[in-house]
């Protein structure tokens, strides 16, 4: 198994736009000037989001990492280390929609295999890490997203779509393809991680709760 590879296709230039600059000012204000290297993760994320806005592919190219290193007065390799360590920084171009399926045990037990299969079917992607032919979707396998009570989870960019199954995954991907963004959260009849179909316990205590409100 061989591992790290710097992608071949790299843009030549990167400039933070005005929206990013405004964010950077807020981020840098949180750290003492001589410790500004602490801002490396927020800045990587700002750069990634900017690229998403600009090109539809939210990733961090080398030039952006170099620019961040220059701004934070740290060695470029230190930025590469951080960017390559965290899986949420994409060091390779991704599709407009980044489908991240959790396949850790709780999600797997609740049917994440179906979600994966549905993703592949709906997008034509063959394996994890690949991007669909139309460049719209990238499918990634991720570890526990910390929302096990709503397993299985499909994370699209920053949004959790919870309690997924095969058909609902296909429907979601079709909606995304139409340019819609269905509301994030449970896709079944429940609120957050409350029981499906409404409350199951303390039903007789309802009035008092209402009074408290």
């Amino acid at each position: 198994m061989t591992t790290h590879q710097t992608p071949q296709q790299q843009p030549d230039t990167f400039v933070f736009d005005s929206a990013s600059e405004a964010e950077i000012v807020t981020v840098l204000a949180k750290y003492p000037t001589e410790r500004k290297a602490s801002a490396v993760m927020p800045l990587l994320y700002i750069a990634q989001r900017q690229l998403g806005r600009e090109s539809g592919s939210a990733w961090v190219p080398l030039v952006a990492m170099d620019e961040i290193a220059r701004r934070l007065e740290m060695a470029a390799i230190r930025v590469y280390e951080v960017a390559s360590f965290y899986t949420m920084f994409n060091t390779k171009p991704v599709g407009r929609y980044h489908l991240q399926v959790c396949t850790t045990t709780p999600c797997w037990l609740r049917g994440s295999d179906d979600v994966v299969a549905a993703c592949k079917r709906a997008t034509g992607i063959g394996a994890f890490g690949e991007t669909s032919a139309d460049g719209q979707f990238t499918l990634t396998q991720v570890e526990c997203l910390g929302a096990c009570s709503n397993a299985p989870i499909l994370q699209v960019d920053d949004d959790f779509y919870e309690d997924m199954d095969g058909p609902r995954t296909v429907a979601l991907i079709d909606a995304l393809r139409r340019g819609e963004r269905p509301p994030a959260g449970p896709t079944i009849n429940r609120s957050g991680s409350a029981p499906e179909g409404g409350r199951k316990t303390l039903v007789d205590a309802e009035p008092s709760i209402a009074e408290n409100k």
Partner: protein
Amino acid sequence: MVRVIVDGTPVDVPPGFSALQACEAAGKEIPRFCYHERLSVAGNCRMCLVQVVRAPKPVASCGFPVSEGMEILTDTEVVRRARRAVMEFLLINHPLDCPICDQGGECDLQDQAYGYGSGVSRYQEAKRAVTDKDIGPLVKTVMTRCIQCTRCVRFTTEVAGTPELGMVSRGENAEITTYVEKALTSELSGNLIDICPVGALTAKPSAFHARSWEYKKTDSIDVMDAVGTNIQIQARGGEVMRIVPRVNDEVNEEWLSDKGRFSVDGLKRRRLDRPWVRVHGKLMQASWQEAFVSLARRLDGVSGYQIGAIAGDMCDAESLCALKDLMTALGSPNLDCRQDNAWYDLSAREGYLFNSGILGIEDADALLLVGTHPRHEAPVLNARIRKRYLNAGRGGFPIAMIGHPQTDPTYEAELLGDGPDVLEKLLDGSHPFAETLKNAKRPMIILGHGALTRPDAAAVYDACKKLADQTGVVAEGWNGLNVLHTAASRVGALDLGFLPGTRGRTASGMLRGGVDVLWLLGADDFPVDKIGAETFVIYQGHHGDAAAARADIILPGAAYTEKPGTYVNTEGRVQRSFRAVFPPGEAREDWRILRAFSEVVGKTLPYDTLEAVRERMAEVNPVFRRIGAISRPEARIEGQSVPSTSVVSVSAPQEDSMEANPFRPVVQDYYLTNAISRASATMAECSRVYGPTRAVAAE
């Protein structure tokens, strides 16, 4: 002090010591991979596990601070099993290709697996493989062997000051890389090979040449710069295979510059291995006898004033002493060791030494660099400046430089200006850095040959001296006015008084027909084409470089690896080297050549043995009696026939006032500075990769 009990033995260690250091103080060996005493503590290999009484589990001793009354157990069943388990984990992805690995025989992993491992592997699964990285012409990588100790990352970041290596990705995918594939730009990159505990980073030029146990090892001194780095020459079958540093905390710690380490192949190329005599304009091979006789015939009837000698940058003090004595016997006052026309304050030994000593850098609290770029002139010394810079913390060690550096100095340095005019501003106090120097307890000025080889060197030196007096650079118990030399032989030659005598000519004065007969002892780094057309040139040296081509008689000498020698480093430390191999062909030790020739011209030098030459050197200057230490007597240069002030008056015309033009770098191309490195294919390749144009572009 804190009292710690190691395996029942109480030891007192300073607070802040780690458990590992306490165990070492108690004489216990603790296996380790990531821990290195000159680097920061990483604690990621887990090999140094020990048991601390009342601790719930074994602790990594490298990062565990000692506390009063702590009881450490280093040899219990728990510890043994823990080490065995750690070793098993380390070996999971290690290819165990020791039979084809260059590190075999000197590998920490091999030794410790043997000493602390379980002896058998239970691992059946597939191992991971990692692609090799190209990090330049000096360091070869076999990344699959890497155990992720990150010593190399910490070395490049902390010691070398070129943060280019890093560990990217995570977990199973973690690997050491430059990320964007590129060559390391450090002049100390060879030390990565020593520091790597496994065979991941090995020497590219000597790959697959020999096994570590086959080498004959000889202690020696590096002559590529004037630091006097302690080295060990490793030879096999009469051939120097590689050079590694020895530990000397006062000089080089355990580092060696790349030029000192990798110029070895230059010792085999372009060598002068037999005498040559020019007959009818063409150099012809000759025997020693023929060469000596024809030289003696040429010298016959020539007045001593018409004979001159210039010494090069890599000569041992023995040959300098013999040549000086021969010249004196021939009646010649024309001697010079300053082929670069440098000017020194010769009134006292302090005038040309790195007075604070290299160790003194660690005490300094402000530094002014004048016309010097230590990163190129003395990389190991530069690492010491960086060490001080890091230890002092932010703003604790202000550094300023006059003269634009060609590359990043590896520490934050304020550029005060390009030329000596800034010195005037510092002197009249109008520049704020004068205040910084004044407020410092142990301020330091390092004066380089970028300043000392200028026509106005005396004025620049005077300005620095004045500044030193004003700001307390020279005070009771502290002399921070330092000269950084670039030539290994220079201080030794100055100590021996290898300088023009009464009405003697300087190096530049001997050119353009200044003398009829010119004896060059390994001198190549001066404008050879400026030697007068009628001048008869004797070249005594080991490489067929610039001067040998011009010579009328070539006397083949020995390179620094091929003779026992004495060298005095820039701080005035007298150090001795031993012979590792014999010189090639007819070549001989240089002082013996001079002694043999002196007999042919009937001016027999009064010594036949190395001991006798060294006794003579000590007679000339007693500093040569104190081997290994820095002598700090206020000794005048003894054995010099003239008061040293007159030396100054006869040297190149010195201007009284400083010129405005900027300081120019003395080292144009770090990798090609002397006859040996210019003959080295490795150094040529380095120059191609890192050469001056690239360095400027990278800035």
